[in-house]
């Protein structure tokens, strides 16, 4: 076992983990934060996307021990004081989800995209979310949701 300390959504946790434990299992099973989903477990679907030190990563492709000392944000940490994050609001307003399984990862990747490109074109949104698969929406409303969030975050609406 190895002892790790991570900050998740602003709260610090110290836990003993088996070195082979994947970060996504640590988040879901040890911390009980089940908003982060597991889709493929093979690094392709993006359902497990979280922010590590501010950058989007696939938490099924990291060991929990690799996250020692880092600061993580999961979907549970986006809203503040009950107000949805603009990207969450965009997915709500623009029907960016159907079954919702891909949504937490899709939202975390979109937050990361908008951090590096505040006003992406449709093409840049589709390209920027290439690491996230959705089996339901056909992506059109996801693009609209991100456009809504971009506008809102730049002071529009």
């Amino acid at each position: 076992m190895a002892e790790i300390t991570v900050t998740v959504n602003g709260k610090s946790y110290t836990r003993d983990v088996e070195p082979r434990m994947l970060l996504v299992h640590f988040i879901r099973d040890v911390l009980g934060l089940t908003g982060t989903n597991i889709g493929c477990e093979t690094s392709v679907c993006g359902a497990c996307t979280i922010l590590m030190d501010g950058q989007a990563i696939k938490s099924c492709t990291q060991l929990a021990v690799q996250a020692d000392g880092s600061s993580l944000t999961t979907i549970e940490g986006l809203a503040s004081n009950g107000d949805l994050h603009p990207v969450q609001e965009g997915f709500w307003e623009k029907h960016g989800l159907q079954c919702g399984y891909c949504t937490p990862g899709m939202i975390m990747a979109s937050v990361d995209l908008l951090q590096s490109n505040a006003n992406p074109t449709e093409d840049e949104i589709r390209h920027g979310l290439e690491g996230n698969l959705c089996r339901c929406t056909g992506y059109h409303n996801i693009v609209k949701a991100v456009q809504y969030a971009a506008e809102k975050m730049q002071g529009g609406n």
Partner: protein
Amino acid sequence: MYPAKFDYYRAASVQEAIQLLQDHEDAKLLAGGHSLIPAMKLRLAQPPAIIDIGRIAELKGVSHDNGSIKIGALTVHADVAASNVLKSNCPLLAEAASNVGDRQVRHKGTIGGNIAHADPASDMPAAILALGGTIHLIGPSGSRQVAAADFFIDLLATDLHEDELLTAIEVPAQSGKTGSCYLKFEHPASGYAVCGAAAVVTLNDDGACAGASLCFNGVTATPHNASAVTDALVGQALDDAAIDKAVDANLSISDPMGDMHASGPYRIELAKTFAKRALKLARDRA
């Protein structure tokens, strides 16, 4: 999907990593984990010990000195793609890195891990070979340098010894009227290259070709240097017809890979098409 059990060690320095490699037989180095962890989950790799080198700060970053650019082995793809030093002095490497996987993968995967893993479909090896790059290695008996042309030995096999660490990749800064281009035809599901083409073209003042290089990934087990094509271009006025002719007459790949996704002959056809497109774009950017 859990990896098999292993002992975990974290190295704080290059020296410590070398020592840990000597102390633990069959141990594997872990950089970003984006090739190793998937292989361990599938139990294609079951190392008894993992040495995490991901935090060794001295192996991160891009530096430019006297016409030569060094990229630390642990520099992640996103930082290679965004590096202003590379964008101004060696845009080919930045362009290739921006083609790796997706944004999440680029935040964790490293250039050193990409080269050490030597997946034939990887984007970076062809670009580094086209640039005439050098690989820096260090082991218990000291450091050594290997030309990229000698580093890739076979499918997933390199000149890196088991007790060595890859520390940096060195490439020359581009000079003169030079343009470059990395283009890939990606597998629609995995995003890996079915065929990738890295091209560099340097023009004389009169617009004729002063020098060029063209390398492919995804087509053969190790990156393929199409030197016969670029030899034929030197001294020529590089209009589209001259490029098409040089590729058609001189591109010869005798040992293509083939699988259920793309047969060998199909990959060679892709290589021809992508060679022409990449060379023309490199010329336009020169």
